[in-house]
């Protein structure tokens, strides 16, 4: 039943909806924004998530996790989109966990995974250096210093950087022009000397940081997945990242559309509901169709993370490209169909537009992934 949820996955989905519906949503998001929350998420929401075991979903049972599937976690990612729920879930419990599970040494896993699963320790990826995602572009350098390394460079758009305990940093370990074998990943504790992290306020009011690394001293045990393997590991982790972002974008699209549809049924102009105007009906029907298509590709891509094959990268890029396009359409149509009220800060719909745009851009937008799809398909 590849394109249906199994019982475990349905259960996770139902509980995510029920929980977030009571504990998250636009009002909480507004509170965090207007209160200038320094951590960028609600401690009590996070505590609840820990109670539900969410930080442990992807962690294998050997390290105190639940060992659930990406499809299960994807249900949470989708609802996180619908309910605008900011938390360290994406950076730490999806990206951090995935990279460790995939490439960590036994020691690294033992040291970090149980605390991550318990929601006590935060990890994140620090890989992008330019305004437009480009994993090939790495100026960060790790120079050999005896058996140690000295790491220097600047990383941008690091999700949750300023609240994380450890960063996974990509850096060049050789001057080889070919990125494929010259990149290595390092685990860098944010408390290390030479690490400076600045939170950057973003349009979605979530956590994003710039990380400056200056001669940070790293031991061999901080290498993740072996010297020169960074590129290969990253391409797998980025497929995971983009598929979960696609799930979040799907949630954003569904919820923006749901709100718009209600508004169409409720707002009166010229003595009738505006939803009775055929031009709006056809646009709504088209959008609904597109969202149905997004549901299928997102589920397929998530399933493919759990059963990796040659087509996993292509499916991840398809899912991201498609949901980017449709989330942009859904949120733009939402504002337009809400009319003036949709333009006001007081009304919630703008939050979806703002968050969608950041999720779209993170780790490659529609253009990036459409291009990658072509490359992976040989044209």
């Amino acid at each position, binding site marked *: 039943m590849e394109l*249906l949820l199994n019982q475990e996955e349905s259960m996770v989905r139902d509980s995510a909806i029920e929980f977030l519906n009571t504990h998250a949503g636009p009002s909480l998001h507004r509170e965090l924004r207007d209160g200038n929350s320094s951590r960028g998420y609600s401690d009590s929401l996070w505590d609840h998530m820990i109670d539900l075991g969410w930080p442990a979903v992807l962690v294998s049972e050997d390290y105190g996790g639940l060992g659930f599937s990406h499809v299960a976690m994807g249900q949470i990612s989708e609802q996180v989109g619908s309910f605008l729920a900011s938390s360290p879930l994406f950076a730490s419990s999806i990206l951090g966990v995935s990279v460790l599970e995939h490439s960590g040494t036994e020691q690294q896993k033992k040291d970090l995974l149980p605390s991550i699963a318990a929601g006590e320790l935060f990890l994140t990826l620090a890989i992008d250096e330019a305004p437009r995602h480009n994993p090939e572009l790495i100026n960060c350098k790790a120079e050999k210093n005896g058996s140690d390394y000295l790491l220097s460079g600047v990383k941008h758009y690091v999700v949750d950087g300023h609240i994380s305990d450890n960063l996974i940093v990509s850096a060049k370990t050789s001057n080889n022009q070919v990125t494929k074998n010259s990149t290595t990943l390092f685990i860098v504790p944010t408390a290390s000397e030479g690490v400076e992290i600045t939170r950057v306020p973003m349009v979605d009011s979530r956590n994003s940081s710039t990380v400056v690394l200056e001669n940070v001293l790293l031991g061999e045990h901080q290498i993740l997945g072996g010297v020169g393997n960074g590129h290969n590991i990253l391409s797998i982790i980025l497929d995971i990242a983009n598929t979960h972002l696609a799930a979040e974008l799907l949630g954003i699209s569904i919820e923006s559309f749901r709100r718009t549809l209600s508004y169409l049924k409720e707002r009166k102009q010229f003595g009738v509901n505006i939803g*009775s105007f055929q031009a709006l009906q056809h646009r709504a029907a088209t959008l609904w169709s597109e969202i149905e298509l997004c549901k*299928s590709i997102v589920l397929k891509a998530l399933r493919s993370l759990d059963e990796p094959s040659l087509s996993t990268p292509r499916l991840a890029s398809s899912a991201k490209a498609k949901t980017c396009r449709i989330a942009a359409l859904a949120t733009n149509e939402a504002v337009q169909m809400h009319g003036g009220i949709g333009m006001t800060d007081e009304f919630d719909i703008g939050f979806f537009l703002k968050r969608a745009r950041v999720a779209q851009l993170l780790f490659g937008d529609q253009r990036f992934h*459409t291009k990658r799809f072509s490359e992976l398909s040989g044209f």
Partner: protein
Amino acid sequence: MHDLNDFRLETRDWLENHCPQSMRIPVVEEKEKYYGGRRSSYYSDDQRTWVESMISKGWVAPTWPREYGGGGLSKEQEQVLKEELSAIKARSPIFSSMGLSMIGPAILEFGSEELKREHLPKMIRGEIRWCQGYSEPNSGSDLAGLQTRAEDFGDHFIVNGQKVWTSSADKSDWMFCLVRTDFESGKHFGISLVLFDMESTGVTVRPIKLISGASPFCETYLDNVKVEKKQVVGEINKGWTIAKYLLTHERQNIGDIGNIARTQTLSEEAVDSLGLRDGQLSDSSLRTEIAEWEIDYECHQLTMERVNLEIKSSGVGNTSAMLKYYGTELNKRRHELEMSIHGGAALGWGEDSIARPWLRSKGNSIEGGTSEIQLNIISKRILGLG
């Protein structure tokens, strides 16, 4: 479950013995397809073997009762059969049959026992090919506005009117046809679904030439055609319910476009024709649009699969209008891109010109309910707007 596995092994074995190798490669040309009917003939001996084996097994209509010649399989067994057929890429024995896929299921659901005994076995045996008489010149999208009149003469009706867009009427033996049997009631009432032989006196068929040069459709003139009352499916004046049932079926069929096997994906076609430069298709805007199309195509295929699974698992499904709408728009986009790939080479007007299927594809979003009608259906029935 153990029984199902047995069934799978038996089926696999049977197919191994009865499906010739040449019936396991995709159809390339239209003429290789077998549609059945009085005027049909086999393209090859292998085809005859394959079609006759499937017919005698009842597997052209796997779930229909054995008493009418069907396979008598359960839904689960049918699924296994489909999987096994697809595993060896077996060709459909009887193609896109309006009988087996449309009026057959309707007769099974709504028809009298007499109708079932008369018509179902002949459909299964490929003896009678069916066509559909729905649209009329003044009722295109507004199907219920039909004006073909069937006047009551006791045990029979006398039918007068005109049907258009009847697919392959010139190659079919019987028609299932919507007629007005009550002229007073509102437009959705007073409609009946009747069956008649195309060789009846008063039936005239004229093929319609399309902009693509082909004539897959006809106009059918009905001039005092006599139709026995026993040939009414379901109740008299209650035909609209059956019509709607059939329309949903039709949408599902049309949503899945392209039953001629394509040997190449669109991007392969582009690479073949335009070549690569540094591993990339040399026309970058075409490259982007082809990638977007292939992503959308995969999304649509997956959605058909997902929706079918959901219907099977929960019985709920109201997405046929969406699949039809999106599938036909996709097919039009595909042909536009194909034209762009081949440039001037696509603009020649030879028999196998790429322009012909391109022109033909423009009709996809018109036939079987226009895209506009599908969007109306989605708005009203699914989204509750109106």
